[in-house]
């Protein structure tokens, strides 16, 4: 642990943080490898922000081991601050400051900042560069916050819900920027409750609930676990399921949950679809309303965290 250069970007073991009688983070383990994008996914109140703010040095953990770039986020804060970019969930900017004035100011606090005008143009900040922060829309404030997090050319950035409240264009611009960061070797840790965002961007996903990581892996690994994918179609009732099953690849299953409505589970892909339509053609069946449903990260998420609404 005395070779900070080789240490993981984030290493948390048994992290605990309590606020009064509430335990926000309850024995969380998380390792973020350098140069990766890690999404911390979880419902509201899962402990995402507390975890990230502990890594940023804003919170002092009550128990556990926490290292960021091999350093203690609280004790070594002065050494870490220039190396870590931070995007808070909201605010953090003088109400009366103009958007580009604030970006230029934070750039001046760093030794080798990005070019402010180029970054502002890249994130569409130029269009409201002279508007004071309090007059910006929520989405514009988010874009400025993102720019503030990356302008100092950090090794590691923490983005707390970077796309909350963004329109689709701004959301994609944010995703593109995160991909560029990764391509340039910057480690990114982001929190989100958008599954598609995690699937789209992350090398690693940590699903957090009740202050712990309840599942961890690549989006593909996580989606493969749990229930299988599904293909449904309708046709005339009482098709020969035995014959259909014989035609299907091993590991698939065909059922008729209600008359004329068929459900096939297994590795749903182009081959399975072709097999099913070919079988239907052979048996003179006009398969109707064919739908495939791939198992998404959202299914895994809801399976693991439950479907009831959070307080």
């Amino acid at each position, binding site marked *: 642990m005395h070779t900070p250069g080789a240490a993981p970007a984030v290493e948390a073991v048994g992290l605990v943080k309590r606020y009064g009688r509430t335990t926000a983070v309850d024995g969380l383990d998380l390792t973020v490898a350098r140069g990766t994008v890690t999404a911390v996914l979880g419902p509201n109140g899962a402990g995402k922000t507390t975890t990230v703010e502990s890594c*940023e*040095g*804003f919170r002092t953990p009550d128990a556990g081991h926490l290292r960021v770039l091999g350093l203690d986020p609280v004790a070594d804060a*002065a050494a870490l*601050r*220039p*190396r*870590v970019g*931070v995007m*808070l969930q*909201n*605010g*953090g*900017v*003088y*109400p*009366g*400051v103009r958007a580009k*004035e604030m970006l230029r*100011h*934070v*750039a*001046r*606090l*760093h*030794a*080798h*900042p*990005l*070019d*402010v005008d*180029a970054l502002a143009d*890249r994130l569409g900040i130029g269009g409201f560069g002279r508007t004071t922060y309090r007059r910006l829309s929520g989405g514009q404030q988010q874009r400025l916050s993102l720019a*503030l997090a*990356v302008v*100092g*050319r*950090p*090794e590691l950035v923490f983005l707390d819900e970077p796309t909350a409240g963004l329109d689709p264009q701004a959301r994609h611009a944010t995703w593109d920027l995160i991909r*560029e*960061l990764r*391509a*340039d*070797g*910057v480690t990114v840790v982001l929190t989100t409750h958008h599954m598609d965002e995690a699937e789209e961007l992350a090398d690693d996903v940590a699903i957090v609930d009740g202050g712990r990581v309840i599942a961890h892996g690549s989006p593909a690994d996580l989606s493969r676990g749990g229930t299988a994918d599904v293909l449904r179609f309708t046709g005339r009732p009482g098709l020969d399921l035995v014959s259909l099953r014989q035609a299907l690849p091993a590991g698939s299953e065909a059922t008729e949950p209600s008359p004329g409505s068929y459900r096939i589970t297994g590795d749903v892909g182009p081959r399975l679809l072709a097999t099913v339509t070919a079988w239907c053609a052979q048996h003179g069946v006009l398969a109707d309303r064919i739908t495939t449903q791939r198992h998404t990260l959202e299914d895994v998420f809801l399976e693991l965290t439950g479907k009831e609404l959070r307080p």
Partner: protein
Amino acid sequence: MSTETGAGPGRHAPRPGAAPLPRMIAAQAALETRMLLRHGEQLLLTVVIPTLLLVLFSSVDVVDVGEGERVDFLAPGILALAVLSTAFTGQAIATGFERRYGVLKRLGASPLPRWALMCGKTCAVLVTLVLQTVLLSAVALALGWSPHGNPAAVALLMLLGTAAFSGLGLLMAGTLRAEVTLAAANLVFVLLLFSGGVIVPLDDFPAGLRGVLEALPLGALSDGLRAVLDDGAGMPWGDAAVLAGWAVAGLGAAARFFRWE
């Protein structure tokens, strides 16, 4: 400042580092000063109200200010009020809302050390005070003010007053909710306007109350400034000691109790 221009791969390649401290402090001081001067409500407190009071009370016989030109009595009190408005009221309200909006938290995650942030705030207060002093002195001179005494004594008293009010303002901003700070800081401004020896001489108050008011920072500051500027006295060490005491207590308590978010 070296910057990487242009788009393309490698633009974000990590190259972290803090700017040199003097550059960070200068940047922070410049930004804080712009924020202070851009704030409309602040200008009301720092410029409009002191100027109006000076003009109004020197031309109209509302309060008995004793012997001599009315402006000679009023100008030192108004300068003391300027210190109160900028170092205490304005700074407390601005800092309270910066804390509430997460500005202090966000800057706490930047390479700027917290003490350098406070340094920037102090510079902004001092720049504003110089501008106020120039403006209010010009208005007072136009009204026939004839100041006496040693300018160094005036500067020292005003610096001690700034330290005392900054400490108390930051203590308030760092411990109370922003709305409470807003209300309380304005209330203190109005109360001290009448009881801090600004427009009403402290001699007009009953002896017991007068002792208390003279021990408050605004009473000590206006009394000290008046002793120098109006009476041509040397350094009023008693008033300076009162201000120094408040400065130590206020800044010490602020350092101890200030919460950054």
